[in-house]
């Protein structure tokens, strides 16, 4: 009976793949074919959608721009979140519980509310249409997320491990990097992926804060709403391509996430 448990993730994955298959299917069709008929496989297999994307600079620069600010944001978020999460996990200080909860409240307002004020704020400091502006603005919701996730995993590591390390002669940096970080590898992997993901899919702020130089792929994709309705074929191809970078990210962190926590010798 135990052996049948592989069925569950398998069924789930099949469920997930169905619309994605449909998306990829559509990306190889012309918009006319999509709207005109129902076929499981393109009747007229075409790569023209992809060709458009790869040859039109506004399209592929969109990817480059998105990748740029997302990467910047993920790195910043993780870097500042690690010490903060450690502080929350190991220390008590004035206002710590309130600060911790306050962090999460920044994710509780619809981004639409922030669009105009952000536009004014970042323009006023001369950062309009830059990658760093988008990266910084995404810190609003990504840093709290990273802190919460990391703190959760750090709390699973017994404090005795810290103390034993000091007794064994480790300095704090040595302890942190050689012992602690490997122990919370799963948390870092998950936090990194989620920061990447939430920043990657965020449309509104990214569009609001950019014009040309740092225009993200999401903005370009809304251009596909033309007078004829959605340019579905193009949209599907673009949609398919947006999955790719993220797939690399999770592939890259898979070992961190799946890593068992074998409390090694200190």
């Amino acid at each position, binding site marked *: 009976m135990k052996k049948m448990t592989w069925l569950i993730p398998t069924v789930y994955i099949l469920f997930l793949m169905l619309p994605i298959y449909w998306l990829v299917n559509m990306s190889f069709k012309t918009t006319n074919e999509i709207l005109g008929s129902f076929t499981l496989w393109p009747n007229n297999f075409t790569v023209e959608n992809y060709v458009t994307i790869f040859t039109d600079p506004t399209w592929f620069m969109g990817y480059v721009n998105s990748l740029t600010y997302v990467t910047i944001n993920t790195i910043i978020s993780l870097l500042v979140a690690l010490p903060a999460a450690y502080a929350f996990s190991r220390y008590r200080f004035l206002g710590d519980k309130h600060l911790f909860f306050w962090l999460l409240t920044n994710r509780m307002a619809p981004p639409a509310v922030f669009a105009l004020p952000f536009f004014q704020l970042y323009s006023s400091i001369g950062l309009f249409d830059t990658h760093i502006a988008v990266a910084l603005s995404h810190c609003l919701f990504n840093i709290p997320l990273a802190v919460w996730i990391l703190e959760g995993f750090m709390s699973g590591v017994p404090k005795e491990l810290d103390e034993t390390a000091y007794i064994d002669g480790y300095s704090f940096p040595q302890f942190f990097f050689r012992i602690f970080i490997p122990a919370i590898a799963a948390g870092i992997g998950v936090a990194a992926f989620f920061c990447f993901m939430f920043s990657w899919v965020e*449309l509104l702020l990214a569009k609001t804060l950019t014009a040309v130089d740092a225009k993200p792929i999401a903005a370009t994709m809304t251009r596909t709403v033309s007078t004829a309705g959605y340019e579905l074929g193009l949209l599907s191809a673009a949609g398919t391509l947006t999955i790719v970078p993220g797939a690399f990210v999770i592939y890259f962190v898979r070992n961190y996430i799946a890593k068992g926590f074998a409390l090694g010798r200190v």
Partner: protein
Amino acid sequence: MINKTINQKAWFMVLPVLALVAFNAIIPLMTVVNYSVQETFGDNLFFWEGIKWFEDVMRSERFHDALGRQLLFTLLILLIEVPLGVGIALTMPRQGIGVTICLVLMALPLLIPWNVVGAMWNIFALPDIGLLGKMLNGVGFDYNFTQNPFWAWVTVVAMDVWHWTSLVVLLCYAGLRSIPDAYYQASKIDGATSWQVFRYIQLPKMKRVLTIALLLRLMDSFMIYTEPFVLTGGGPGNSTTFLSIDLVKVALGQFDLGPAAAMSIIYFLVVLLLCWVLYTLMMRNETN
């Protein structure tokens, strides 16, 4: 559980986080609060209105309806996605090529921009040219999400489950993988059954991670906008007009910044309250 030491210097470790987040939060917040207590007449003319907008919103039936729909939606989402996510995480492979396949494939829905998700499901669910629509009608259901509120709800919920369950799965899986082997070994020696292992080891150890997953899904489903908007536009009628969609209609449709801002603040407070309650419930056993 963790014996924390009192150390005020820990503030330094938290300072960068505080700076970056507060920078993004405080100024826009002040703007919103500003708008919420004033009346605008285009041309940047503002008049003080005090709490009038708040009262209006709280009393409006339209608001109550949208809130009701939203609460139902969020409840459904949590009831489906969290147990499902936990269950999948428990049955996922622990090592080998299966891990890679599972993780990568499960992450894919999360990476699609939300408007594309909505558009995808829109086509996917169309009765004549979409795979889902065709299948359901072929099996005998009279499926049409653009005209039938029930089917619209089913489709929106299915879309959200499809889109976001993987978030719960990934979090819970990472949490599970962090449980040291020694716990499983000890339970084997103690003669525990799989159910006991789940109840006494896995579930407690996943509590923090589950809390995060729950809170995230609570917040995000409560604020959901793009996907249902692209899928159904809030319809048919206003059967799938959730709170966010309603808010945007009010703000954009009528150019009433005052009520919109007030509504935003009430919205925020509702989410805050729900999250705070959930958080307190989940964390009540932690001795700090």
